[in-house]
């Protein structure tokens, strides 16, 4: 049966017919793999999604984690699903063999986890955060820290968090004030309060490993003075068992619009509720060196942001599949030319305007899924491409694309969720149908891991100008190569895309001609919109090329959605590019008294 969670056929098309991921298996890192293992991982993820994750998606939303003043209680279905997930070993699938990982390519791991993200984003967030935490420690922690904290995370016994934000420091981490004071035994004592911490406290695991950004006494101001600490909820004894309670205390939970099954917390460190080791302060150990904390966090940022983009895609995708199914089955009205009220009603998918919404949604979610998998493949390329030039180019491209991979799906796959509600009519606005929850869940993705506004500033302010524009040149080169291959029916699209990316180059130069940050900051979001659409048009041209000579409804669907994107979406950026070319400073100059 066709699933309403994800499309098995689309994932297989993207992995094998477009990205040719089987070719990766000739590289030493992936030698143990084959199409068989990839397919088996995809199938396993689908089974977990269908049997253990999707069934409690609604329940987790209506019964959000409950704080009784001391502890947080999560519905038992979450623990059961997470136990099945831990048991499956998927947690460590992409990690190195030497830490017990399976060296699965990132791109396959990413594709597989869209099943779980689409089935139940709130539940999969617990292990997803834990893996991000483990990855960071594997890259920057000591061998002893890996042994003590990462192994139990991989085994599914400990979960992890990322503690960056504070009430007064969200987008601006320069203002983080949590303090960390070095002790004689080499450990640190932490004092402060963290806001918005996902999975900050719960009864799902033996222990919770917090990674905390904090400032040591006398550290330089701003982000350059931030260090990173491991602060476990329970101190871990030398034999690996959990010991004394650390002074990390839950101060409250936030009640959110979506992702309700993921508990979101305010955590106090070193307030004095517990006195670990007989002293004041939460005990932490330093990761790497002092003052490098943010750099360590950012090292993992590309991966984390691709993960957020993937979540946005998965939620938009499942919304689209639900809308499609509903539209095929909901009878309403008759064709305009049928004046006989006694004739049977037609399913709403026959109405042009409903098809418009569905085709638009299809172009957003399938275009964005392609981008997310392409980005994940760049992670693999960055690690394993044959030449160092190829590895460097992959890293550069990924750097430039990351803000788009995070923000474009957060905006446009959310639009697909919006259309899914619209296609359901009044029923979509009720809690009887899941599409309203998908919308609420997806609304987060434009906010966390750096808001879309911050992504846009990162894109125009840093990524396209870094190394004298090397990133943008690399992107321009890749897109031009695709355009050059576009012939026959696709030639006109190739030309349109080439014109668009050429114009992006010109606009970027214009915006930075005066080196006036007022201009850049005033235009960054519009710029991100325009470049985002160009990149997705590129993804569509690539997909249409991969469909060449193939027939059947699936490939016709790809061609129809690609044509839609080129004919209806890409032209929209024309006026935006005109506006950008003018280097307008309205928003920088505006007197906010007038607002």
């Amino acid at each position, binding site marked *: *049966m066709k699933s309403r969670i994800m499309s098995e056929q689309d994932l297989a098309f993207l992995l094998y017919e477009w990205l040719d991921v089987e070719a990766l298996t000739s590289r030493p890192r992936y030698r*143990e793999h*084959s199409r*068989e*293992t990839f*397919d*088996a*991982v995809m*199938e*396993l993820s689908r*089974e*977990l999604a269908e049997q253990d994750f999707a069934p409690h998606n609604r329940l987790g939303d209506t019964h959000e984690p409950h704080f009784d003043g001391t502890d947080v209680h999560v519905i038992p279905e979450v623990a059961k699903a997470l136990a*099945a997930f831990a*048991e*499956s*070993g*998927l947690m*460590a*699938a992409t990690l190195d063999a030497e830490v017990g990982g*399976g060296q*699965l390519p990132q791109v396959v791991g990413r594709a597989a986890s869209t099943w779980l993200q689409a089935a139940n984003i709130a539940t999969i967030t617990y292990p997803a955060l834990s893996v991000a935490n483990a990855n960071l420690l594997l890259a920057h922690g000591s061998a002893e820290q890996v042994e003590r904290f990462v192994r139990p995370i991989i085994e599914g016994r400990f979960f992890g968090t990322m503690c960056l934000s504070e009430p007064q420091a969200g987008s601006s981490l320069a203002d983080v004030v949590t303090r960390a004071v070095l002790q004689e035994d080499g450990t640190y004592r932490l004092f402060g309060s963290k806001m918005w911490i996902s999975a900050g406290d719960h009864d799902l695991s033996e222990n919770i490993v917090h990674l905390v950004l904090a400032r040591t006494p006398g550290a330089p101001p701003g982000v350059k003075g931030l260090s990173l600490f491991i602060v476990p909820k329970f101190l871990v004894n030398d034999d690996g068992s959990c010991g004394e309670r650390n002074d990390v205390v839950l101060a409250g939970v936030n009640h959110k619009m979506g992702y309700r099954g993921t508990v979101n917390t305010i955590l106090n460190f070193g307030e004095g509720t517990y006195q670990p080791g007989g002293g004041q302060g939460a005990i932490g150990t330093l990761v790497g060196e002092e003052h490098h904390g943010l750099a360590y966090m950012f090292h993992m940022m590309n991966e984390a942001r691709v993960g957020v983009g993937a979540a946005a895609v998965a939620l938009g995708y499942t919304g689209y599949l639900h809308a499609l199914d509903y539209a095929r089955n909901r009878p309403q009205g008759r064709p305009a030319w049928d004046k006989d009220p006694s004739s049977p009603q037609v399913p709403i998918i026959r109405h042009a305007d409903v098809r418009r919404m569905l085709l638009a949604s299809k172009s957003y979610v399938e275009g964005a899924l392609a981008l997310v998998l392409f980005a994940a493949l760049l992670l693999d390329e960055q690690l394993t491409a044959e030449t160092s030039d190829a590895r460097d180019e992959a890293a550069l491209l990924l750097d430039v694309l990351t803000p788009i991979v995070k923000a474009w799906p957060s905006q446009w796959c959310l639009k697909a969720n919006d259309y899914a509600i619209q296609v359901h009519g009044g029923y979509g606005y009720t809690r009887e149908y899941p599409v309203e929850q998908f919308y609420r869940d997806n609304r987060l993705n434009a906010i966390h891991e750096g808001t879309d506004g911050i992504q846009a500033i990162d894109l125009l302010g840093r990524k396209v100008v870094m190394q004298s524009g090397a990133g943008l040149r690399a992107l321009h080169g890749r897109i031009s190569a695709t355009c050059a291959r576009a012939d026959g029916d696709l030639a006109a699209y190739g030309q349109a895309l080439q014109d668009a990316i050429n114009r992006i180059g010109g606009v970027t130069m214009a915006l930075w001609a005066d080196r006036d940050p007022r201009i850049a900051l005033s235009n960054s979001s519009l710029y991100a919109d325009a470049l985002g659409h160009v990149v997705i048009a590129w993804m569509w041209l690539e997909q249409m090329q991969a469909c060449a000579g193939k027939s059947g409804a699936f490939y016709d669907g790809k061609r129809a959605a690609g044509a839609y994107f080129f004919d209806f979406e890409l032209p929209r950026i024309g006026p935006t590019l005109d506006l950008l070319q003018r280097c307008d400073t309205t928003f920088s100059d505006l007197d906010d008294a007038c607002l």
Partner: protein
Amino acid sequence: MKIAVCVKQVPDTWAEKRLRESDRRLDRESADGVLNELDEYAVEEALRLVEAHGGEVTIVSMGPERAAESVRKALSMGADAAIHVSDDGLAGSDALATSLVLARALDGRDFDVVIFGSESTDARMSVVPAMVAERLGWAMLTFAQKVDVDGTTVAIERAGDGETVSVRASMPVVLSVVEKINEPRYPSFKGIMAAKKKPVESLDIASLGLDAAAVGASGAWSEVADFAARPAKAAGTVVTDEGDGGAQVASYLVEQKLI
């Protein structure tokens, strides 16, 4: 203990299945092939038995080449080895022929226990396990919802209408198990990687020493004479409750000879 589990690849249970006009057989291309879900209980039970008593589990399957995917799935759940019988000449085999092939593949390999699921979700006959037992001359314990092994004795519980029946037999024995018996595990990532390296023995009609005329469509004792699509759902009967709704529903059910 040496356990064999017979598994079948079937078209996705939830997919809409079609019969082919040409030979009135199931169009297997029209749906994805999956490991018969009811066989997963058999695999799980075998794994649990060897976890408790030691031994090894061999998967045995008759089916076209693509059935190798389902064999591999059973291996990635944790089975140790597999036998895959595949031959174009086997297409169209009925239950009798299938049991002949399976019995031949199982015979002489010192299996103590052979486990089947209760039925395949496509053919739904539930007869192959008993036929295999008969051909092998082994004891047959059907529809087990609980299995205990003590030395060479296998005891099962079977749910009857109002009672639970306990049955015992000495090895070698053929078992069929029902869904209630356990909750099958997922394959694990490690299992998936390990499955690639597990031995899969390939057999065909000739290597089993079978008479080609006794199997496949030519050897089938039964034939699909005709088929028709299920008629479209007729409009339902609406009962308007004006105080006598219950009585109306009851008389409708009586009319239809349902009660």
